[in-house]
């Protein structure tokens, strides 16, 4: 089936919906999602969205910019960070104006709270910069955007798994996938295509990400011979529920929660004397694992405690109701009485598909744009997060750059010529599906996936080193080979999730290889990328962005200079 639109957005999270909403001014826009709309992982965002509104205390965009640049361990492009920090307040006002139900302070203004790495006056002390809707900020924004998109006539195509981008004369002119319900090809023909496909946390065993976060957009980009930027920078959030990986927002520490080791010590005081438990995530995750490796985990095990008891029952229910409730559900613990076992969990991909600050996808490190293709959100790399993202900066990234992407589409769409799509487009997908369903392969998807997830979590997470990376790269390549020989027991064409998981596994293994390969090349430690064989930041050699391309002879790296700006390099201490 062929669907005709002006704009097709792949991915229905906040970046996708905000781009769609912005572009939907007399323009036919469709949002395509692998899950149902409102199920994308943006709904899991808990704590807040950063902007220097100054509703609680004095704040300036320069302070926000400084924190973001320092948080990124100086790898972010400062022109992009400036756009983010300057544009954030208006983005929040726009969200408020379309109906997002932010929590309010006593003056009736949007309430703000502290968050990791956000400071006043260039690092002096924590600042209240995070706007929020209790601890359901993502859900609240998503629901509002969904309703507004419906009012604007945005069309939703649910449960469609996109497999290929379509190009004609070096222009992106659509995408093709299949509907999960019937496994029939679905062709989307458009003047502009937006990738808003999120991240790939499911490459790791322990992750805060949902099942749908399998890096599909990254794989689409690689298929289109596009580079991926800075993929070695994978964020591990310090406070995942031990064992489950479910996220407990930094908001818990912003409201007064503290981390304690097995001896009951507030160990963050030793690692970040000024910001303590509100230091950036990479620093806290390393601190937790250091405590554990020093034998100071709880009962000598591989977790520490998050102590929310000081916050008190009433305030927990008021400020952190969602977290309080799922801690009760999954651990049977009342956080006002007992401490919560936590450990780092894979959370966010700082790298991604390189874009400029208007959302155009870059075809190469020289900055050439690929006409008709845009990207926004976690799958994109602008880069505002550099080597480590600050909490609350992802939601604001989605809205600021989602909005800019929508506006550039609006500006450019009328001048864009509709390119014809090849008549064979459908067969790309039908062949792919048939060959998997009819495969006589013997490998089991669940086994390969578990191997990959364990390997990545054990070897390539908060700490890694050259030897581990080399070993992992070999195994990932073996797993890739084995994955080309999977066999499906399920031959059905209706809701065949085994088929979907086979395709997702291929995507994840490709991205895992890129992550490990990128990390192996970068012989330094910066932000979330920490190599025990190169434990120091090396600005002379590595203050540059990694670009990785898939080529017929394997992955190839190249490097792009940084966009420097007003803030000079500093030693990163908190």
């Amino acid at each position, binding site marked *: 089936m062929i669907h005709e639109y002006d704009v097709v957005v792949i991915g229905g999270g906040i970046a996708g919906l905000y781009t769609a909403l912005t572009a939907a001014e007399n323009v036919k826009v469709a949002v395509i999602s692998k899950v149902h709309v409102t199920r994308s992982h943006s709904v899991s965002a808990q704590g807040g969205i950063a902007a220097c509104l100054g509703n609680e205390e004095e704040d300036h965009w320069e302070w926000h910019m400084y924190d973001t640049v320092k948080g990124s361990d100086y790898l972010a492009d400062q022109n992009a960070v400036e756009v983010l920090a300057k544009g954030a307040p208006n983005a929040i006002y726009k969200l408020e104006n379309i109906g997002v139900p932010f929590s309010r302070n006593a003056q009736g203004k949007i309430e703000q709270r502290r968050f990791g790495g956000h400071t006043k006056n260039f690092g002096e002390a924590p600042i209240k910069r995070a706007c929020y809707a209790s601890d359901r900020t993502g859900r609240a924004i998503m*629901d509002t955007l969904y309703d507004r998109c419906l009012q604007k006539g945005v069309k939703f195509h649910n449960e469609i798994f996109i497999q290929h981008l379509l190009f004609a004369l070096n222009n992106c002119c659509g995408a093709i996938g299949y509907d999960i319900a019937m496994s029939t090809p679905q062709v989307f023909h458009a003047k502009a295509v937006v990738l808003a496909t999120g991240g790939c946390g499911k490459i790791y065993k322990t992750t805060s990400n949902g099942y749908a976060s399998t890096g599909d957009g990254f794989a689409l980009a690689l298929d289109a011979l596009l580079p991926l930027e800075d993929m070695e920078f994978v964020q591990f959030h310090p406070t995942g529920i031990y064992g489950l990986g479910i996220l407990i927002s930094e908001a818990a520490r912003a409201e007064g929660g503290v981390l304690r080791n097995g001896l009951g010590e507030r160990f963050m005081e030793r690692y970040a004397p000024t910001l303590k438990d509100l230091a950036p995530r990479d620093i806290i995750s390393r601190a937790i694992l250091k405590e554990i490796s020093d034998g100071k985990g709880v009962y000598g095990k591989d977790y520490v405690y998050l102590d929310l008891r000081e916050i008190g029952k009433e305030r927990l229910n008021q400020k952190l109701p969602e977290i309080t409730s799922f801690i009760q559900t999954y651990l049977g613990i009342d956080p006002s009485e007992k401490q919560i076992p936590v450990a780092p969990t894979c959370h966010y991909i700082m790298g991604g598909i390189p874009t400029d600050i208007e959302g155009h996808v870059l075809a190469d490190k020289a900055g050439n744009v690929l006409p008709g293709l845009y990207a926004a959100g976690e799958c994109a790399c602008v880069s505002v997060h550099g080597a480590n993202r600050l909490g609350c900066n992802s939601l604001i990234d989605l809205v600021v750059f989602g909005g800019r992407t929508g506006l550039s589409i609006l500006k450019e769409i009328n001048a864009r010529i509709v390119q014809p799509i090849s008549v064979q487009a459908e067969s790309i997908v039908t062949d792919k599906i048939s060959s998997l369903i009819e495969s006589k392969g013997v490998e089991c998807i669940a086994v390969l996936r578990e191997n990959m997830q364990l390997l990545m979590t054990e070897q390539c997470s908060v700490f890694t080193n050259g030897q581990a990376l080399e070993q992992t790269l070999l195994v990932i390549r073996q797993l890739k080979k084995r994955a080309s020989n999977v066999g499906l027991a399920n031959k059905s064409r*209706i*809701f065949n999730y085994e088929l979907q998981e086979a395709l997702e596994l291929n995507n994840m293994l490709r991205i895992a290889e890129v992550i490990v390969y990128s990390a192996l090349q970068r012989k330094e430690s910066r932000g979330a990328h920490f190599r025990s064989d190169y434990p120091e930041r090396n600005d002379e050699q590595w203050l540059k962005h990694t670009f990785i391309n898939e080529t017929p002879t394997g992955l190839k790296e190249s490097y792009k200079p940084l966009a420097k700006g007003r803030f000079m390099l500093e030693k990163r201490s908190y």
Partner: protein
Amino acid sequence: MKVTFKVHRFNPEIDKEAHYDSFTIEIEPNDRILDCLNKIRWTQDSSLAFRMSCAHGICGSDGLTINNQSALACQKLVKDYDYFKEIVIEPLKYFEVVKDLIVDLNPFFERIKSINPIEVSNPTIDELEKERTQTIEERNRFDDALKCILCGCCYGACPVMTEQDQEFIGPAAILREQRYIFDSRTTAVNERLQILKKPHGVWGCKSYFMCTVVCPKNIKVTEAILRTKKKIIQEQSKVSNRRETGGN
């Protein structure tokens, strides 16, 4: 320990009618029901079809009927049930079953769409107000409704929907409208009340309280519906008072 799950099966490609399959798996009392379903799918029968996404009760994908009551598979643990007996897993009631545990959610999302008046316009960047203020009390009036994750559990539990009026707009749609009607910033309150006054609208609710009982987010759904009904009556009496006094 070993636990047996009796799972609703229906494959439209081969089955004329639904049947049940039993699967016995090795699991722990603290495992989520969703973990159990995944274990079945990954180790015993890869054709078992069910939806999932976030796996911690915020995306709303895995609403099912577990031991005859609507619930989220990722929010219920094995120990929440009597696991010495078979745990029965079925699709959400009310909806048409497409395959195994998957239902057609279109009627649900169509209703969510239907409560959205098209007239409401979005401010463009040039029309931006800085920020509209709202007191904490005003914000609290619709706070409970914001917890809704559109899982559809309330539709599967509502006796009006399942037994009396298939066309009933349903608890989640009314709840979402309540969220806007009680938001001090909403300009189209009257239009929204009109939508709910239509046949099969808010007056279809007979206060069985089943939506409240099953709601995975513990929302007081029935109370929100009753508050909406009260609001409609209040607005009507305002209008008739104006008519009687000749004012406007």
